[in-house]
């Protein structure tokens, strides 16, 4: 089953890359892209993104910086299609492989009651497809300010393990309502991008775990087809802080055999602020983006030491 998933992913990747290599060589400013809102019906874009994230320790966890190391390698596939002028529908899914190393892996819980799997914390890499992201976005040009409100639905693509330091996601259904804004100042090479999304997360044990995700990028065009950006991304919201989870953990009389501990990875607070830099290069209908980031603040979240990402987007 896993072999079939990996093969499918590789085929998709190869198809996208071969399409990108066959790109036009001239710069085409008017081809639609996620940030180019001159978007005619029947066009769209596809993208493939690879990320390498490494986290060392926690911001608030009881073991703090000694709580271990987690590495995530991911490959994300996205596509958008303009079903009408200014209206796109988009679909995406990431494949994530993760590894935990350290002294404080999530312990295996007795099975039953919930059979929460912990094999993700055994020091080996484990890969799974994560959540489908399907959505619709409207692109408006308001006197030079490009505004794109959107609605996204996130649905787990399979029963991937959520319990563990190396869990690739919360395995919850979510609905995100957001808006993207971009603007290039007149007669200037300076631009900015902003994004905001409020996510209604599937409540677990009746615990509110909705959150806000937002950020802003400030960019500069070194050339018409080459730009650099300072980026930020912040997540603030609801959920249980570590101080609320610890009383139910394995070190307590319950031994962690209780719903709060078993399911805590679904509603842990996980607030953070990431900053970084990005570089975008446009060739033909393609945009190649490089991003490097790290977290500078967090609450009840892992401490992101660094994240590297490379993304290829091709418009059609």
């Amino acid at each position, binding site marked *: 089953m896993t072999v079939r998933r990996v093969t499918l992913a590789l085929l998709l990747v190869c198809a996208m890359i071969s399409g990108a290599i066959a790109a036009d060589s001239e710069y085409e400013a008017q081809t639609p892209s996620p*940030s180019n809102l001159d978007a005619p019906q029947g066009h769209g874009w596809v993208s493939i993104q690879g990320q390498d994230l490494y986290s060392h320790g926690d911001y608030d966890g009881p073991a703090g910086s000694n709580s271990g190391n987690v590495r995530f390698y991911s490959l994300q596939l996205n596509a958008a299609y303009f079903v009408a002028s200014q209206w796109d529908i988009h679909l995406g899914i990431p494949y994530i492989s993760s590894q935990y190393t350290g002294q404080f892996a999530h312990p295996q819980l007795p099975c039953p009651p919930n059979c929460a799997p912990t094999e993700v914390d055994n020091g080996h890499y484990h890969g799974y497809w994560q959540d489908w992201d399907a959505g619709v976005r409207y692109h408006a040009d308001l006197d030079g300010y490009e505004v794109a409100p959107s609605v996204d639905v996130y649905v787990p693509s399979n029963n991937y393990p959520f319990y563990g*330091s190396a869990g690739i996601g919360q395995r919850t259904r979510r609905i995100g309502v957001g808006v993207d804004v971009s603007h290039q100042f007149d007669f200037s090479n300076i631009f900015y991008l902003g994004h905001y999304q409020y996510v209604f997360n599937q409540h677990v044990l009746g615990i509110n775990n909705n959150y806000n995700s937002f950020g802003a990028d400030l960019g500069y065009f070194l050339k018409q087809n080459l730009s650099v950006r300072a980026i930020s991304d912040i997540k603030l919201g609801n959920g249980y802080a570590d101080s609320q989870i610890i009383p139910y953990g394995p070190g307590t009389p319950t031994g962690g055999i209780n719903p709060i501990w078993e399911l805590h990875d679904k509603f842990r607070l996980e607030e953070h602020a990431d900053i970084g830099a990005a570089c975008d290069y446009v060739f033909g209908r393609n945009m190649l983006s490089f991003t490097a980031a790290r977290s500078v603040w967090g609450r009840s979240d892992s401490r992101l030491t660094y994240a590297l990402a490379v993304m290829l987007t091709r418009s059609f």
Partner: protein
Amino acid sequence: MYKTRKIFLTIALISSASVTFACGESMIQSKTGMRYHDFSTRRPADILLFSSEADSSKQISAGLEHAGHHLTVVAEEPAAVDALTSRHFDLIIASPKEMESLTAHLAASTQVPTLIAVIDGGDKSDAARFPQYVYQSDGVDKYLKSIERTMRERKS
């Protein structure tokens, strides 16, 4: 065997009081960048460009049209008068000398276009005479900025 494993597990659970919570973000929000946009006006103007210098007027008119303005380019006074007679313009871009040749005609017009003078950088008196001006050596961007400012003032 199962009982032994269960006891061992219980000991392990109790001893692991400092269990990690390192479950966190598995991906960062990495957005794609922005494509460069040439300036595109949001206030398209009908412009009469009166210039006897063909090369520079060709370059300027191409830049202004690319930004979304509607250009009529003339090189001589009779053609300029014909153009002014046949239609309305929001702006006239011309040198002070060329503007003077149109003074009589403009005085008789009911809707007077705004004048943007193309002046010599060394002549300070021209700069004082014309509220809106660009220098002869200016590039398209300076023309566009002056047009934007003028059109904004006309609308208000």
